[in-house]
């Protein structure tokens, strides 16, 4: 019982003590994961929209493919992105390895299939009259696509929230390409892994508690957005 209570009280302590290192970790986690979700969404939302709306050969295969990609272990994604960003990798010249940018890339790769799969599902289940209705009212094809997205907005926002949940909680990819550098690439999850490996279980639990609070704040904000966006 001490184990859990200790972690909880220490977590509350972290929140109120304004420890700059812990707040630095929180801010970095938030920045990296939000950037990753936005980056992934820029590709995943249009792609999911197209796959969900258009009829073409191989559509079912693509849907199955994206659902399968959800099973990718984060460590494997970390390895792949490490291979790409490494000095000898094709993108080594960017010098992104062991920077927050590398974590953004890895997490975006992780979030991409999840958001795509969920957007496809959202669009497929949406009424198929939306696009044609927009067209008959004078929309360009792009405006019609936007109308579809707007009608599916609750499911699309849920897809983004799910993507955020996946990336802010993952540790494998972030530690591999970020390197867990103190004050620079140390996020909630890599810090928790480190504290646990040091035997600082209470600190690990406390950080986990803090992470939950941050995730709660993000979800409340997105919920607020949903309620406003009519």
């Amino acid at each position: 019982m001490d184990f859990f209570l200790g972690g909880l009280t220490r977590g509350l302590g972290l929140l109120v003590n304004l420890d700059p290192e812990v707040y630095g970790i929180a801010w970095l986690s938030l920045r990296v994961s939000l950037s990753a979700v936005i980056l992934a969404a820029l590709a995943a939302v249009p792609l999911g929209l197209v796959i969900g709306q258009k009829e073409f050969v191989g559509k079912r295969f693509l849907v199955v493919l994206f659902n399968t990609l959800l099973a990718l272990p984060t460590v494997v994604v970390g390895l792949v992105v490490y291979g790409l960003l490494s000095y000898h990798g094709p993108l080594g010249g960017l010098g992104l390895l062991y920077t927050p940018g590398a974590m953004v890339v890895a997490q975006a790769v992780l979030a991409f299939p999840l958001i795509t799969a969920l957007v496809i599902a959202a669009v497929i289940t949406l009424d198929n009259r939306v696009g044609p209705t927009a067209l008959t009212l004078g929309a360009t094809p792009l405006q019609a696509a936007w109308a579809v997205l707007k009608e599916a907005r609750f499911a699309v926002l849920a897809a983004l929230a799910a993507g955020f949940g996946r990336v802010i909680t993952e540790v494998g990819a972030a530690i591999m390409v970020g390197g867990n550098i103190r004050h620079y690439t140390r996020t909630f999850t890599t810090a928790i892994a480190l504290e646990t490996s040091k035997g600082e279980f209470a600190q690990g639990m406390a950080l986990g508690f803090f992470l939950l609070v941050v995730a709660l704040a993000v979800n409340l904000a997105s919920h607020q957005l949903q309620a406003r966006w009519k």
Partner: protein
Amino acid sequence: MRLRVLLIVLLTLLLAAPAMAVDRLVLATTTSTANTGLLDVLLPAFTKQSGITVHYIPVGTGKALAIAKRCDADVVIVHAPALEERFVADGYGVDRKPLMHNYFVLVGPPGNPAKVQKSGTVQEALKRIAQAKVPFLSRGDNSGTQVKELSLWKAAGIKPDWPGYREAGRGMGPTLTMADELGAYTLSDIATYRKYLSTGRISLVILADNQDLLKNPYSVILVNPAKCPKVKYDQAKKFEKFLLSAQGQKIIADYEADGKKLFWPVHPSK
């Protein structure tokens, strides 16, 4: 609608801007040096003196060397002499210098089912463990600690192949916890063991300590600029010089965790 798009773009830029690369030296090192907190004292002192930022990546020795082989680090601090020699012989590393050492400890359950004698040598201890076929937990992660453990078995002329000999495949901390729960013996670095013991997480006791065979030497090696043209050799060289300078060695000698000395520098008198 256009405003919203603009907002999103701005937000992305804001979020992504701090992700840009910085000028820094990348040090790949073992978790044991990182976890003790030594680097958090050593590196700021170097930065203050030289203006060079050092980012350390805490991983196992094997992985640290693998990262360096791919030119993704500028300098390494590791503790596995055999691997280090290969690393240098293969042309990946240059200017390998001994930096400091401490001692591994052989630990086991307080009941000591193998009846290991605390005053004996580590070789005798391992023989007892093998004869009694009691559980022994190996790191199994190609860390410096595991490399050391395997060399100890070899030196004792034992092939660890009884069913109780298992590999954890995890870091030192989790391995200690597992060993404690399994009632197994294991080899640990002193710092992690002390940390776990002090939090009351484990009850394992030290059975062999402070012997030459258990010496755990750390080296600093620079990544060969001939293999990795973009490596920051000159800055790394400065870093190595600092580590071996009187100032650097004194910081190592004076570093204590929980009131106990953890590392012995190679040039203690300087």
